[in-house]
């Protein structure tokens, strides 16, 4: 039987009291106004008010809290800084939100072996700052990196612009200390990064909190590149910019980053305090960065790439003259999401990934869908990886508009899937993309995922209702849907989006 956390009532009060004994009363939040501050993540479209919020201050406190919740059968949701974009770190009224931001120590930096060990609440950029005196940095750089935590990055397998060359979070996590659903602590991986048995570290990264809480994270650090070139290329058409991306990839030179912004995004940035000097009349700009350890090699590669961009329709290619200009060009890109928040009251953010060669067709199809629904879609994304972020700005107060946005979102997703893509490249499934899972995975694949989750968390008590839409799972070795079927009843497996193949071909 599953008990509830409950912000209200006797049961909720006794739970809060028990939690207070572990972490201290000031680190347990029960009052509604306090709990409401945790009702959203970085995505404005989902809202859940947690039953109780608890902020443990150490690994041992995490273990004690998790054991208590296990004994009571209370579900819980781990959370970092809450900058996620999938509704993944939200807890219902019957669950405890376990906030890990107080576990914020950098435990070790080993410059000789280029390894750091951190607690989950360490903010992404803080690790790079701490490693900088050793000429090292932590490579994954999600746009939220000034606020997001490494623990959250592990849960979501976070990406970022520079993952094109250096890989996503999973590439950089060597080992984990994990608190399982029952409070047991296990070490996954080994100090040097070689898997110890099956690659459970790789399996854990990106599991969105469903497999437990990472309390110690061992990551690889990289040498700070000695040479950097940042190019800004502007184009008259989205299609041309998309084709230039393919040409760069096919050249065999792997840029550190290759980002695209369309005109709507350019204007949003230029209207904001982060104006970067992007040409407003361009249909799209590409921001291309090359880096490496040898000045002459990076300079030669930058020349080659600039030549390819010009040959593929760039109106002009600007090379950042100094660190200050480079910073400014990047600032615009990193703050583009925030800048778009100014366009209107509400924003839907997507995260599909398509084969890079299909970018020109897919971008045009997205434009047609936006026009058909009378919506504003801004594109700012990791073009080099084919990782799109079409953002739909709208005012949710306008009657019927939200429904239109949802319909258009579904069509955009269908176009990306039809092109051979996937529904999320770095933001995760959370609550937001549950409904799309059956579009890319069949009942057996979904059932396999659920069965794996139950190996780590047999009662499906950690971050319940996320990632796998249970109703779409086939039965799997005794795991029946009816057992826990009520958990994510909100997930619709109705995949009746009109698949607009015509949008790709017309």
């Amino acid at each position, binding site marked *: 039987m599953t008990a509830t956390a409950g912000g209200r009532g006797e049961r909720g009060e006794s739970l809060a009291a028990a939690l207070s004994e572990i972490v201290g009363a000031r680190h347990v939040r029960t009052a509604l106004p306090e709990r409401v501050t945790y009702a959203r993540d970085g995505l404005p479209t989902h809202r859940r008010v947690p039953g109780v919020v608890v902020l443990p201050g150490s690994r041992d406190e995490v273990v004690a809290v998790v054991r208590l919740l296990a004994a009571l059968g209370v579900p819980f949701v781990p959370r970092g800084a809450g900058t996620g974009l999938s509704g993944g770190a939200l807890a219902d009224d019957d669950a405890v939100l376990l906030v890990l931001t107080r576990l914020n120590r950098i435990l070790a930096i080993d410059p000789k072996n280029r390894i750091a060990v951190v607690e989950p609440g360490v903010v992404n950029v803080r690790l790079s700052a701490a490693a900088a005196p050793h000429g090292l940095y932590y490579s994954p750089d999600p746009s939220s990196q000034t606020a997001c935590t490494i623990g959250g990055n592990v849960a979501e397998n976070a990406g970022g612009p520079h993952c094109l060359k250096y890989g996503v979070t999973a590439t950089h996590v060597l080992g984990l200390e994990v608190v399982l659903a029952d409070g047991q602590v296990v070490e996954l991986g080994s100090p040097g990064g070689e898997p110890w048995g099956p690659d459970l570290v790789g399996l854990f990264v990106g599991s969105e909190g469903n497999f437990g809480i990472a309390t110690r994270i061992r990551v690889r650090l990289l040498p700070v590149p000695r040479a950097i070139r940042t190019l800004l290329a502007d184009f008259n058409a989205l299609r041309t910019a998309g084709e230039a991306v393919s040409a760069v990839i096919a050249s065999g030179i792997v840029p550190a980053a290759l980002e695209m912004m369309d005109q709507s995004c350019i204007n949003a940035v230029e209207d904001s305090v982060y104006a970067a000097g992007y040409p407003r009349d361009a249909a799209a700009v590409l921001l291309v960065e090359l880096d490496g350890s040898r000045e*002459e090699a990076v300079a030669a590669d930058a020349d080659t790439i600039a030549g390819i961009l010009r040959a593929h329709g760039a109106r002009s290619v600007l090379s950042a003259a100094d660190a200050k200009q480079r910073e400014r060009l990047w600032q615009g890109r990193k703050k583009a999401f925030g800048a778009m928040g100014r366009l209107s009251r509400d924003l839907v953010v997507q995260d599909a990934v398509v084969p890079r060669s299909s970018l020109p067709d897919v971008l045009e199809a997205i434009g047609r869908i936006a026009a058909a629904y009378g919506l504003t879609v801004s594109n700012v994304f990791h073009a080099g990886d084919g990782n799109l972020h079409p953002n739909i700005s709208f005012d949710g107060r306008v009657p019927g508009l939200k429904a239109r946005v949802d319909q258009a979102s579904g069509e955009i997703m269908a176009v990306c899937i039809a092109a051979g893509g996937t529904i999320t490249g770095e933001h995760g499934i959370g609550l937001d993309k549950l409904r799309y899972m059956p579009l890319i995975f069949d009942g057996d694949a979904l059932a396999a995922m659920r069965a794996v989750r139950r190996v780590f968390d047999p009662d499906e008590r950690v971050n319940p209702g996320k990632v796998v839409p249970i109703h779409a799972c086939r039965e799997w070795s005794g795991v029946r849907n009816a057992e826990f079927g009520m958990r994510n009843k909100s997930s619709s497996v109705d995949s009746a989006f009109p698949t607009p193949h015509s949008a790709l071909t017309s």
Partner: protein
Amino acid sequence: MSLVDRVRALLGDDAVDVAATPDGVPRVAPGSPDAVGLLLGTAREEGWRVRVEGAGTWLPADAPADLALTTRRLDKIPAIEPQDLSATAEAGTLGSVVATATAGPLRHGFGAVRDHLLGVTFVTGDGRLVQSGGRVMKNVAGYDLTKLAAGGFGAFGVIVLVHLRLRALPRADQTLVLEGSREDLTQVADDIAAAAVQPAAHELMSPALARRERWLLAVRFAGSAALVSAEEAALRAATGGRFTALRADEAHALWMRAAESFATRPVTFRVGGLPDSSDELMDLLQHQVGDEWISASPGIGAIRWGGETTVDRLRRLRRTLAGLEVPLTLERAPWPVRAAVGHFGAYREGVGPLVAGLRRTFDPGEAFVVAVEGTE
């Protein structure tokens, strides 16, 4: 109906080769992923024990089983996309490489198998086709089950299809070598790392492996011409110009020999420690199992060992290494050694039940004959 008749009825006459295996186990070669599913579904019903074979060049086909399932007819490469730098290949081409997560010297610069795997389709012990990941460069949709396929030694399913990240062939590719004592070359390797030289491979090889009088440190640069010449200059500056550049044919012969040598010794294992413990680990290997066939990537703490040894020595070595928090993964050995020692041996505390749970999930009837933990 006999097993062979049953399989023939299921998959057709030409899918079974009765006389093919040395130990007389009937060998079945399904021609499609669905046929693999059909076969394993039936195996589950009948309680057949199944061993999985690739091309047979890597793991010896010697595990005791009721039937041998070979992926050799799954040898198509359905897609190579140069514009996307991606490919899709059936398991008969690369299945064993993925299943063992084996890697050579280029792992230093380019990463392990897991970093090149975009998606996998595998068939579980009860015949279900499970698709994981996809064919695009980034993907966080659902749990990453591809990570279980890479280095899972087939314990969680038969890999039938893989989606891979490709790299453009380098415009320039230069290998330089330096011969010397292991002690001397270890110091040179440290100097190279300290000078932030970034090679594609940085490998310390034993004399037998390199076919030299003494140990060999081989450094390989791959990329644009400008990059390779700049890195080569940095290497020379950091090491006082002691390295000798190899001709392309010499370099090719060296790297091929290094790769093939590990497929011809009876036992091969890998060890992964911290980079700065590489030398100490090599001493340990030398002391306990000999160092005739060793190849080490000191920059990433990876060591490969090949040769002849006993179950007792392997167990003792693994225990010593476990005390140093260094895992030993047995990549290749005759069945009696695999069965006793296991590919992984004992896990860290608390991990065993997780692995056991995963195995039950993907192979509920224990159809796959895989020596994962060993018997100690």
